[in-house]
């Protein structure tokens, strides 16, 4: 179990900057995100787009802004738990909170800051009947350990880079790799697309174009995948594993069950300090809503500053907090 002052759920720009504002007040932070990398929407959706409305930066590439934020907060030595989804938030009798992820990681903190953006980035799932029944029993949406697929029959679905890359990689490990794609050509990196087509010609990858998965079956574990072509013919493919790879999209997820006031997938806050209806829990950035809310990075940064001062008073009700500019003392690292 990790112990910290503030547990921040979401490593988007706003969650990251909250570490800085908290750090100035000598509050330590632990940041959690389901994505394997920090940056939220910026690194996941538009890493290469320039942003023009960050004060003082006439133009900044989204990934560069994330890198800069990581550098800016590094003196405060935040801890990170990445690649895990926060599932539970429990109140303790002493007023502290314990946050638990899907992998069982626990963080105990004095305050919780939800900076969850548009929600938890989750895999897009194709509409196939009983797909969810086979999750963890042959169906997965990412490749965590390729060794799990050694000498297995693997079916991949999708037409993007990750479908191409994994088809190429797993072809050398699995007994058989089938790649199913709706289109008749690939739009991923031309290099990988060419390689996949070549390996299909050599019989090393079973490539089914203009096809969709229409049904899956098995007895306790996935056994077969039915594929229907645009010509309406259906084929059965023996499969130990099915990996649909259709990218990620954000979903509010477990946060909806934490007893917070929610309006249209956003958490209602008091604009005095961006606190929620539960004492000790704050919500900042795209995840919150209040009259006049704008989903902008700069608004999230402002919210982080006010939140940090309020969280300090919540955590140390008897300590006096004197407000200081960074120009006075600089940034005092931990």
């Amino acid at each position, binding site marked *: 179990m990790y112990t910290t002052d503030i547990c921040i759920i979401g490593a988007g720009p706003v969650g990251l900057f909250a570490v800085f504002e908290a750090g100035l007040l000598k509050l330590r932070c632990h940041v959690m995100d389901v994505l394997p990398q920090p940056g939220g929407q910026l690194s996941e959706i538009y890493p290469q787009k320039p942003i023009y409305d960050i004060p003082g930066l006439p133009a900044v590439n989204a990934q560069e802004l994330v890198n800069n934020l990581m550098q800016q907060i590094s003196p405060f030595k935040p801890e990170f738990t990445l690649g895990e989804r926060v599932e539970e938030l429990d109140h303790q009798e002493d007023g502290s909170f314990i946050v638990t992820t899907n992998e069982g990681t626990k963080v105990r903190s004095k305050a919780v800051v939800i900076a969850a953006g548009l929600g938890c980035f989750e895999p897009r*799932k194709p509409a196939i009947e009983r797909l969810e029944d086979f999750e963890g029993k042959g169906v997965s949406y990412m490749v965590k350990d390729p060794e799990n697929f050694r000498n297995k029959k693997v079916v991949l679905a999708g037409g993007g880079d990750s479908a191409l890359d994994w088809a190429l990689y797993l072809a050398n490990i699995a007994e058989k790799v089938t790649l199913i794609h709706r289109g008749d050509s690939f739009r991923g990196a031309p290099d990988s697309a060419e390689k996949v087509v070549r390996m299909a010609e050599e019989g090393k990858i079973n490539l089914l174009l203009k096809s969709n998965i229409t049904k899956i079956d098995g007895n306790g574990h996935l056994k077969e995948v039915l594929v229907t072509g645009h010509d309406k013919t259906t084929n059965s493919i023996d499969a130990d594993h099915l990996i649909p790879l259709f990218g990620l999209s954000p979903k509010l997820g477990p946060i909806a069950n934490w007893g917070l006031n929610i309006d249209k997938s956003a958490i209602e806050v008091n604009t005095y300090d961006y606190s929620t209806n539960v004492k000790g829990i704050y919500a900042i950035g795209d995840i919150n809503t209040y009259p006049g809310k704008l989903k902008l990075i700069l608004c999230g940064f402002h919210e982080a500053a006010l939140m940090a001062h309020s969280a300090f008073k919540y955590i140390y009700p008897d300590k006096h907090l004197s407000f200081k500019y960074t120009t006075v003392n600089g940034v005092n690292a931990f």
Partner: protein
Amino acid sequence: MDFINITVENRNGERQELELPTDMGLSLMEALKANEYNILATCGGMALCATCHVEVLQGGEKLGSMSDAELDMLDTLPDAGPDSRLACQLRINDAMHEAVFKIRGEEE
């Protein structure tokens, strides 16, 4: 001001006719949002999120070809079909007159 008419089918299959201006440079995504359709449009219209996915039930052939960005994004959608488009990439213009669109993208 010039107007065209289109028909929009919502997620429940209910249809409504809309009259839209062609001279405001609006995209179909913006026009749908302005008409209170519940569309996420997370990326604000850059063909980066696919939440404004629509199916063109009628008049698709007149809409012009897709950019690489739109094709790439549609490829990531498990439920896209041959008539899928991203509403943010469609300009409201005369070619769209009498087209029929079904909203497919995720709800807000």
